[in-house]
């Protein structure tokens, strides 16, 4: 592995794990814990994004408990989709970016509902689980409640993450853009 990747990966992983704190300070119901994964996929390709997602999930598990490891699968899918979007100029405008973000949110939400229903019996992170409990109280069946709440949260979160990365990459300074040729393609330049 070359020195630039050795420098890029820890930064991207740390962004995944830390950025939520900044958004929390604004009191917004977002995690954005895939920003580093998406950014790495856009700048250096889906394989690098996947590595960021995988190692990030390993470390997140070390700090918060390994029970959440299965959700790491979602990070890999996000990296793949972000890489695909980047290769097709998917970050060239906010509307196109939003479309890719919603698509990714849909896939991520579907996957996460399967994981949380099968492996976690619907009880995972408290934000989603609170919604699940509420829906269940209203008489929804458990699988439906889990799917609906995962989709809702993931659609918003992944769309926001894509939009943010898109805005960042479109406004990247020339020098950085020059050093990441993939980024130029991602924004259609």
């Amino acid at each position: 592995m070359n020195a630039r990747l050795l420098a890029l990966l820890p930064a991207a992983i740390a962004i995944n794990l830390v950025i939520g704190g900044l958004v929390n300070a604004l009191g917004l119901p977002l995690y954005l814990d895939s920003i580093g994964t998406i950014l790495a996929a856009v700048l250096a390709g889906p394989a690098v994004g996947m590595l960021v997602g995988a190692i990030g999930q390993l470390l997140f598990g070390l700090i918060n408990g390994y029970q959440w490891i299965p959700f790491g699968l979602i990070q890999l899918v996000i990296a793949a989709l972000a890489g695909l979007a980047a290769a097709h100029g998917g970050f060239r405008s906010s509307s196109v970016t939003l479309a890719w973000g919603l698509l990714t949110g849909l896939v991520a939400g579907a996957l996460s509902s399967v994981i949380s229903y099968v492996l976690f019996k619907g009880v995972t992170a408290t934000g989603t689980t609170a919604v699940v409990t509420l829906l269940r109280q209203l008489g929804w069946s458990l699988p439906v409640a889990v799917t609906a709440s995962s989709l809702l949260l993931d659609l918003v979160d992944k769309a926001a993450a894509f939009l943010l990365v898109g805005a960042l990459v479109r406004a990247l300074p020339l020098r950085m853009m020059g050093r990441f040729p993939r980024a130029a393609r991602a924004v259609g330049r």
Partner: protein
Amino acid sequence: MTLAPGALAARAHPFTPLVVTAAIAVAAIALPGAMATVALYAATVILVLATGAGRAALRALVPLAPLWLFLFLLHGVLGDGSRVTVAGLSLSRDGLTLAVTQGARLGAIATASLALYAAFSPARFVDAVAERGWPFSAAYLVVATLLALPRFRARAVVILEAQRSRGLRLRGSVINRIRAIGPVTFPLLLGALAEVDERGFALETRCAAGTVRRTALAPPADRMADRMVRWAAALSAGAAVVWRVFG
């Protein structure tokens, strides 16, 4: 990081807690039924206490408590099937069993992970990897990220301070708060990318990307006991899987 002085977990070879944690996680998922998983959770807590990482068992309660609460609500209270009455509450019998099983399962995994984190020494881990001749870049990524986290957290705090000093208000209407996402997140992202360049220069000059086998500065001792514990852990996890599949 929060170990008792002279703790067994701190003296063990870095790979030993790693293998034990993995084995507990595998066993937790494999073991069937409430009895077995509760027993595993109990065993994990005892093991963690015995190796001097007891505080991890306590710290694990922080993420576990809400999980347990929701398991109880969602499955115990709102679950389907035959009901039992406990202390005046009508609860689902199956749901309750499921909640206990899942709760103990998560308890064992969370406790073991946090104990592993407490026992994790970046320098010893790097040396252990170097001594085996395994790829340094893998160890580098894990350790560099772990050590970067406090730096990034501190930077996030300074960014909020800097933008507030320029008059940015973090509260207010949702629109205002959405508008504030850029000013608070972009400095972190741009700063990180700018730093990547320079750190890349430094790592290149300091031969981090070489193919030479790295020297372990203070290789941790891998005692017979370490190896025996690792084998025992791996075999127990295997046994749990076999029990689940054929039992």
